């Protein structure tokens, strides 16, 4: 069990048969970097608040899910066009290798969500 980071909560589950909810969600796009220390995963997740984010690492499967809320809109405004997808999202990624007992850290910067997974040596 990994303790919740300051920004957001990270849960590591042992259950491999993760089951998606009935409704398919939208999927943010992601880049995976290989680094000397481990991997870094960068999600295109602007506008998601850390407390709306949930990260699970189950063996080598990384699940990032959460909800994007439109907190920009205020009373009296109305949409002329909507193209950014809000509401729940979920992304399940298979990592190149298993990271048992790795250090996991999330970071939000410039609209990116970066997850650092570093081997413990």
């Amino acid at each position, binding site marked *: 069990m990994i303790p919740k980071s300051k920004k957001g909560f990270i849960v590591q*589950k042992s*259950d491999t048969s*993760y089951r998606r909810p*009935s*409704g398919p969600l939208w999927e943010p796009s992601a880049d995976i970097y290989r680094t000397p220390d481990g991997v870094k995963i960068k999600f295109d997740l602007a506008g998601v608040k850390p407390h709306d984010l949930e990260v699970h690492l189950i063996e080598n499967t990384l699940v990032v899910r959460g*909800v994007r809320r439109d907190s920009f809109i205020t009373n009296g405004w109305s949409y002329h*066009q909507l193209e950014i997808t809000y*509401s729940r999202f979920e992304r399940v990624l298979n990592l190149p290798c298993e990271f048992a007992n790795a250090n996991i850290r999330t970071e939000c910067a410039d609209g990116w969500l970066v997850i650092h997974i570093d081997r413990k040596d």
Partner: protein
Amino acid sequence: MSDEKKDNLIMTDNRTENGTENKAENRIVELPILPLRSLVIFPSGLSPLTVGRPLSLAASEAALATEEKLLGVLTQRGESDTDPSPELLYSVGTLVVINRMMRAPGSEEVLHLIVHGQERIRVLEFTQQTPYLKARIEVLPDPVRENTPEVEALRRNINELVGRALNLLPNVPPEIRAVIGSTGDSVRLAYFLGSVLELGVQQEQALLEANTESELLRLTHTYLAREVEILEVRNRIATETQEQLGKSQRDFILREQMKQIQKELGESEPEQAEASLLRERIAKADLPDEVRSEAERELKRLERLPSAAPDYHVIRTYLEWILDLPWKTSTQDILDLNHAREVLDEDHYDLKEVKERILEHLAVIKLNPETKAPILCFVGPPGVGKTSLGQSISRAMGRKFERMSLGGVRDEAELRGHRRTYIGALPGRIIQALRRAGVNNPVMMLDEVDKLGSDFRGDPSSALLEILDPAQNFSFRDHYLDLPFDLSHVFFIATANTLATIPPALNDRMEIISLSGYSEEEKLHIARRYLVPRQISEAGLKDGQIEISDSALQKLISRYTREAGVRQLERTIGRLARKVALKVAQAEGDAFTITPEDVEGYLGSERFMHEMARTELPIGVATGLAVTEMGGEVLFIEATLLPGSKGLTLTGQLGEVMQESARAAYSYLWAHADELGFICGEKFENNGVHIHVPAGATPKDGPSAGVAIVSALASLCSGRPVRSDTAMTGEITLSGLVFPIGGIKGKILAAQRAGIKHVVLPKRNEPDYNEIMKESRDVLRDLSVTFVERIDQLLGETLTPGDGSQSRCGPEKPERAKTPAPEPVGAGTEVRVKERPRLQ
């Protein structure tokens, strides 16, 4: 609101924190509600929506104003356009997220949405009706998954049905197949099918409301099965309709395809094949322009006709005739004169005149290749080799030989063909012969041209006029072809036994070459050289088994045959050879030499006797010379006085001309008796005169017996017998002139054969005689000839010198006591002069 929404997130995700269990608890939220018309949105995938009703617009705006863009959609019962009241809405619907939104250009009142179905919801209560519907809803859990055999069976059935449906549907995009194939979740598949199949609101709503997997799948299966059945029926109907509609069209298409296939295989339709074959042949054939254009015109007509049309075959035959004819094909003449001479000599003995003519022509062709072929006419008795001479000419020149017999042809159409309008019309014999020959310059033999018939049905000899005229026959038009054919390179040779029946116009077009009969000497050569070897080998005898001596052959020629040609001789030699063959076969010997004495043993007694010169002639008998088609002949003119009778009696089948010549002789003597020193006037006054020419059964004609008749009559008047060793021939006139006659050669040969020592001929025949002497000097060395110009000269030659008893006259028998008149040698033998002696 924002709190609610946070709850919403957490509550919708029923696996937060401890996701191993699905919590059955129902999450309840308040949402703007969008009523849907005739559409059910399932919690799966994206759906486009067009929003226009005020209530819906307001609900959409409200949803867009929220942080999560969540919206509840409920389907309305019925189709009313106006904003529906909540009672009209189904209570179970779907929670959707608005994924995209844009306003329709130029209109504030229409929104285009793309919504993403998320969860099933149930309305608990409507909390607001204006400006938009708002309701408290509970999120329903996914249909309960079951793993019963029933569910598995339904899954499999559905999969199978989906497969069938995909095959029945035309134009299913490949993405759809991919989506369906990749869906492992039967619930999602059911929802997808619900949104794709046009099931109708009720059924779709029922699917949405299904709470368990088995219920959902059962409904899906039912609907899908029905759908598939409908599809199948539709397909079947469509196919049947198409089949019925397309029956005739189908036949047409099949037929077209067959044609195409046949074309591919290279087997076109029979008529087409025939036509194209003909077209090919026309293209390849070397035709004159006029012929080609005519052929192409006919071919076009042919192509338009069905093969069953009667004209079809007429045109086809016509075209084939055109193509078969040698319009431009010809053989190269062999212009080697030595070769030609060798060939001609090899095949025929003598016949110098003909051979010279052929060689002359070859020489001319050599110098001037454009020269027209001559048109020859061989006239001569049967068996002298006219036809074989034609063959020999063709061989000498290296040309093809075609022979046609015109004997008995009495229809002009036989030569020139029938017009194509007649059924079974064919070209005439000329064109047919050219087709057979395959070249346009054969030697064409028109046999028996003198025996062409001619009657009211037409005169074929007139058609020959065109064919045989070098000035016209370069464009000979056959009635059938109706195209000009160039006959000018054809070497025409006509043959005839006599010129008498050939119309003068035709006679005029041909170069007449007479082939008189062969002399015994010539026959001997011919027999030695050609007939004997041929007949010996025909009889299967080998060299040395039979030897026929010259004198035996001579005997065969003179005693066993009587002819101008050599056919009979050949048959006789054949008979002789067969008799010998019989003996050889019976092993009676192996080598036979035939001597004249043996001949009788083989062939029986002699069959013919020539009239031989009589050793002494009674008064009033003269030896004349006649010519027949079998050669010359000696004949005797007998005259006697008939006391108490009057006038001139002529017997012995004499023709008009001969009778006239007898009258002329009679009148001449009567008129000139005094000058001649005869006492004719008295004798003729008191006695009738009878002239007879044996043999009485053979018709005779011609003026050449004039001198013999006059001699016989003079003998009668003078009482001086005619010299028995003298024969004579010539025409006489009333004024006492002796005119030339023809057939000198035959006559001289006959005289020589008959043992005559002396012949009297008209002076003007001297050149002929000289000609003959060049060839047959040996044969004629014992014969002396006197040429006379006048009758008085003649009588001096023919009558025995007067013994003073000239006054003895009257019907007394001439003195015969000294030497009894010898029995005529030929008495009792057959003397046939088959045809009239020639009028010349």
